[in-house]
């Protein structure tokens, strides 16, 4: 576990400041169970039939019922230090990590004016549309955003962020610009799932931005990020064509529609790394009938060497003012990485409850 100085400082300032500051506590949780109904697994690795539901934290289902891969809880403490300054920390425990509590967010926020806010500390990388609220399942339709899209091994960064919000005629124009780095001393996905040696994954010189345009029923989002990748395998620096670092560039577009009870959710993303393109997209449609929202979804990952996709059908039921029940069936087609399967084809059922408080 990595405890950043910022996290420790924030936690300390909240404890000592609680006498003076207005402290808000809020949280979220998901309790989700599921199993693989049928699947191929990857016999050459001794992998039983597996549904890999979450790449970065290696959350996967097998043929026995499990309540761990998608279950999680989060607790957010936010202290209003007045005059525009706020300290926020979020502790998240995920079933895939045996519910070990970690500081996922710890940042200071300063409101410059009506339009701009500056933040510094540890945050989630806002790459894909759902990246920065991936853990808050209550805020979206499915049990989880499609695994085929949300595959990248780094999902936090330490740095600074400037976010803005403007009203231009009928459009709300918002977004943020950020820079920072992340040094994951033992990356779970690369060390455990795609290998068996400890891998230290560094994304440095991260510079990115998000632009969102909202109007009535239409929500458009553009995202771009570039970073420099360094990697150590077993303590030895990895080289790519003789270079000990490589640059990645990520670009994405998302268009979402929420019109007359119809929901259409889309995103299209491309990561360019080592001269190759890693393309992902997600298409979902849902229709709200009272408290129920049945949906269908398709997500795809496509690069020259790696291909997999997931077709899903499910429903969300807002049975309570702070909780939603969800059930989902996923059918994964795995065309592998360089001829080797990621986790093989699988069909899986998952269901559970998401809540916020």
């Amino acid at each position, binding site marked *: 576990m990595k405890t950043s100085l910022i996290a420790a400082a924030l936690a300390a300032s909240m404890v000592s400041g609680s006498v003076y500051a207005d402290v808000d506590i809020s949280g979220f949780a998901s309790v989700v169970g599921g199993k693989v109904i049928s699947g191929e697994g990857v016999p050459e690795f001794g992998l039983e039939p597996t549904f890999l539901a979450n790449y970065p934290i290696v959350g996967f289902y097998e043929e026995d019922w499990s309540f761990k891969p998608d279950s999680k809880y989060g607790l957010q403490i936010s202290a209003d230090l007045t005059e525009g300054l706020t300290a926020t920390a979020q502790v998240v425990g995920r079933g895939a990590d045996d519910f070990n509590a970690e500081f996922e967010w710890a940042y200071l926020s300063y409101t410059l004016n009506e339009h701009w806010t500056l933040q510094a500390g540890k945050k989630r990388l806002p790459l894909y549309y759902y990246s920065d609220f991936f853990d808050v399942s209550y*805020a979206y339709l499915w049990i989880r955003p499609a695994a085929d899209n949300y595959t990248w091994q780094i999902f936090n960064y330490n740095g600074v962020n400037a976010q803005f919000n403007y009203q231009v005629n009928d459009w709300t124009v918002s977004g943020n610009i950020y820079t920072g780095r992340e040094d994951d001393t033992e990356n779970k996905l690369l060390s455990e799932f795609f290998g068996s040696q400890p891998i230290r994954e560094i994304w440095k010189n991260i510079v990115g931005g998000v632009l969102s345009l*909202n109007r009535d029923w239409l929500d458009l989002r553009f995202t771009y990020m570039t970073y420099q990748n360094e990697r150590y395998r077993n303590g030895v620096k990895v080289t790519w064509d003789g270079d000990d670092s490589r640059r990645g560039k990520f670009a994405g577009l998302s268009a979402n529609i929420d019109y007359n009870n119809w929901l259409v959710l889309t995103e299209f993303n491309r990561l360019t790394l080592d001269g190759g393109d890693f393309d992902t997209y997600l298409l979902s449609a849902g229709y709200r009938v009272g408290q129920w929202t049945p949906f269908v979804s398709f997500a795809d990952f496509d690069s020259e060497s790696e291909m997999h996709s997931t077709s899903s059908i499910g429903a969300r039921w807002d049975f309570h003012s702070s909780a939603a029940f969800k059930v989902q069936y996923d059918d994964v087609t795995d065309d592998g990485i360089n001829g080797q399967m990621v986790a093989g084809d699988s069909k899986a059922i998952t269901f559970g409850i998401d809540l*916020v408080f």
Partner: protein
Amino acid sequence: MNWLKFVAIPLVLSATAASAEVAVVVHPSNAASLDQAEISRLFTGRGSAFNNGSKATPLNLAESAPARAEFDTKVLGKSSSQMKAYWSKLVFTGKGTPPKELATDADVKAAVAADPGAIGYIDAAAVDATVKVVGKF
């Protein structure tokens, strides 16, 4: 078919919500004019000032108050659970804070009467001279 009943009851409940009129209220000294789009902007965190430039402090009713669901549906065009999903995305990503919630119409009226920058909403039947109505829905 117990399962069907299980599905049908919540549908019926959500369709039979009361339909009293909701009045959006501000401090009597507030001269700002507000249409539905502007009210919606203030209550969704997309704007934080009245059209005359002065800072606005929106006040929500708790979910237990009947006018809350009315306001969410008629003015914001969303169900209360859609609004909760919307706010949970903003709150847990550090992009926004939902309006403060007060328990009753009387609490909102008292808070608006005491704050020139406040904007709230109450059951239209609860309006009196301590607040100024800027819209009825």
